[in-house]
């Protein structure tokens, strides 16, 4: 395999891994503060992508021409709206179930995800079919042999990584982040210390969902096509990436995301029947979990007895 072809695979893997990591970071944040699986995360991402599309259609109808303005408008609409959606779901679906077994949250969010998905399918005009997502980023490309590097891919990878870094800084360097970490470590003590538990949870869900919206828009801008089912697999993979990396750890989520993208790419290259790539990726996941039972970057918490 020549270098340029290898480079292309690496580039594909990077793009895919960035999107996975953005989803995985959300999962890891939710686990951190509430110790719950939120199965609707992939569908929230999908709604984010559709919100972005509607914003684009609206802005174009208003006569906005500039691609830069349009991209900015798409993100500035999708991200805050989906952050609100995430906080609302936490407030009215997740928090009311605090007293019951954590797995019950899984069911209610699973159903909420179905509601979102079915609602887009039924009520977005012809929503059962895939929708084209506009090309808003420069599509110029440089080619080296088999490697085609398009500027839009480069911009999206940079943007995705920057957003993850931003969330990381927010969690580690700000007062808000301190509160999130405090609740994640020990919510009871944090409450005793006078922290507003509910507010911290809502803000965390808002941040995670905002990142999902950004991931949805990124996927739209990269693939130039979105559909009501796009969140299903992304959600499962994001969840897997977060767990493989090690829950509650942002680096773990990033590592997990790129690991998963790498496995899928490798699987597709190695096997004569590329569909085996998912069998391969998930089999490796099982092996990794056997080897490191609390993820690649293990949780730094002693068992409370």
């Amino acid at each position: 395999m020549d270098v340029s072809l290898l480079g292309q695979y690496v580039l594909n893997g990077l793009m895919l891994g960035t999107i996975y990591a953005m989803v995985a970071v959300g999962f890891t944040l939710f686990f951190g503060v509430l110790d719950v699986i939120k199965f609707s995360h992939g569908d929230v991402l999908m709604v984010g992508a559709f919100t972005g599309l509607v914003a684009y259609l609206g802005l174009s109808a208003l006569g906005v021409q500039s691609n830069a303005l349009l991209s900015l408008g798409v993100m500035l609409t999708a991200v805050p709206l989906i952050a609100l959606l995430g906080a609302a779901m936490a407030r009215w679906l997740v928090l009311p179930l605090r007293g019951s077994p954590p797995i019950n949250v899984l069911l209610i969010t699973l159903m909420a995800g179905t509601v979102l998905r079915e609602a887009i399918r039924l009520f977005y005009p012809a929503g059962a079919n895939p929708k084209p997502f506009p090309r808003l980023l420069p599509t110029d490309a440089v080619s080296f042999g088999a490697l085609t590097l398009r500027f839009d891919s480069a911009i999206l990878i940079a943007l995705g990584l920057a957003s993850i870094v931003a969330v990381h800084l927010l969690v580690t360097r700000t007062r808000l982040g301190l509160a999130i970490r405090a609740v994640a470590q020990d919510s009871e003590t944090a409450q005793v210390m006078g922290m507003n538990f509910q507010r911290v949870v809502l803000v965390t869900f808002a941040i995670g969902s905002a990142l999902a919206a950004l991931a949805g828009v990124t996927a739209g801008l990269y693939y130039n096509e979105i559909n009501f089912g796009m969140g299903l697999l992304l959600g499962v993979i994001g969840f897997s990436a977060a767990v493989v990396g090690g829950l509650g750890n942002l680096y773990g989520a990033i590592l997990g995301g790129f690991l998963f993208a790498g496995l899928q790419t490798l699987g597709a290259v190695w096997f004569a029947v590329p569909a085996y790539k998912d069998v391969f990726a998930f089999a490796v996941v099982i092996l990794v979990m056997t080897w490191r039972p609390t993820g690649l970057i293990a949780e730094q918490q002693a068992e409370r007895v």
Partner: protein
Amino acid sequence: MLPRPLRAALCCALLLVAGAASAKQAVKLVFIGPLTGGVSANGLGGRNATDLAVRLRNADAKAKYQYELVSLDDECKPNIGVQVATKAAADRSIVAGVTHYCSTVAMATVDVYHKFGLPMVVWGAVLPDITYANDYPEVHRVNGTMINQNETAARFMTGLKYQRWAVIHDTTDYGKGHNKYFSEYLARNGGRILGTFGVTADQQDFSAELTKIKDLRPEVVYFGGITPLGVRIRTQMDKLGVKAVFQGTSGIVSDAYIEGLGPLAEGSLAFREGAPIEKLPGGKFFLEQYNAQKYNDPPEAYGAFAFAAANLVMDAIEKVGPDRKKVRSELNRTRDYQSVVGTITFDDHRQNAVPLITKFVVQDGKWIVWEDSDYAKGKRKLVQP
């Protein structure tokens, strides 16, 4: 506004009142297809087309019966399919059915129809085994199988002097079947397949597969699968700089394919059994009527087949009366029946022996019959071999 089924129910109630006045005997038909989930666009298109056929028939004063449509959702899952098929077939008031888009579901349910003696006509499932792996007099099919499609496709494409193919197919029965028959006929016509790539139906990213394909330098990328996946693969081919002709199957002959791709759709090829609907007088009428009903979803590739199947069934009932056995024998005898998808003649396995496969190419945002296109006339060129 009320959701459509509620409105439909209200309409039905009103029609029933009206029907009582005109004292026509009510006859029930069943439609089964995927109304929820990933391929629901096709199911809804088929449901609407069947609904349209029933409405038009009921509006016709000459019709002897008042038809009532029961629509059931099989979710494209074989176990749910058996469940709803049993519901319909065990209900003696239902006389005949227009059923199934998903091949696995049809494979699972044909035994049920046979057991309960409910005559049915498949409107969209393309796996040959549905009609050929059994000899059930209840099972008919108006659409062709994937064998016919791929035979023509292979002959036509090699005729255009293409030699090197890469094949991508989804790993459902639809994609796998297409891969099998296309590879077979392509080998007979002297084409060469450089690589075959099975992908799962819910996959979003194809960059690894397409990078591999790019390295193989095929002239044509053959895709066996349906619209959503087709849109994704065609888009990502462009992204990765794979410059090859995109050749699809009947599964992508839909407005959604063009809508999903925009200008990128230009020059995509696909093949579908049956005459081009727009060209038949009945077909034009179908499309006009369909649009007049303002359904939420377009008819998709197989809507016209569902419409034809529903009319075939209702014509049989008009002729012999609402009796399952008689309708079955009447359907078995179908010869040279004129429909919106062309002439229908059933062979000894009650499979429509459609001689005609139509070749389509996307030109200026429309699926155009190849012979009428600028490409055939030499005004535009596909990617050259």
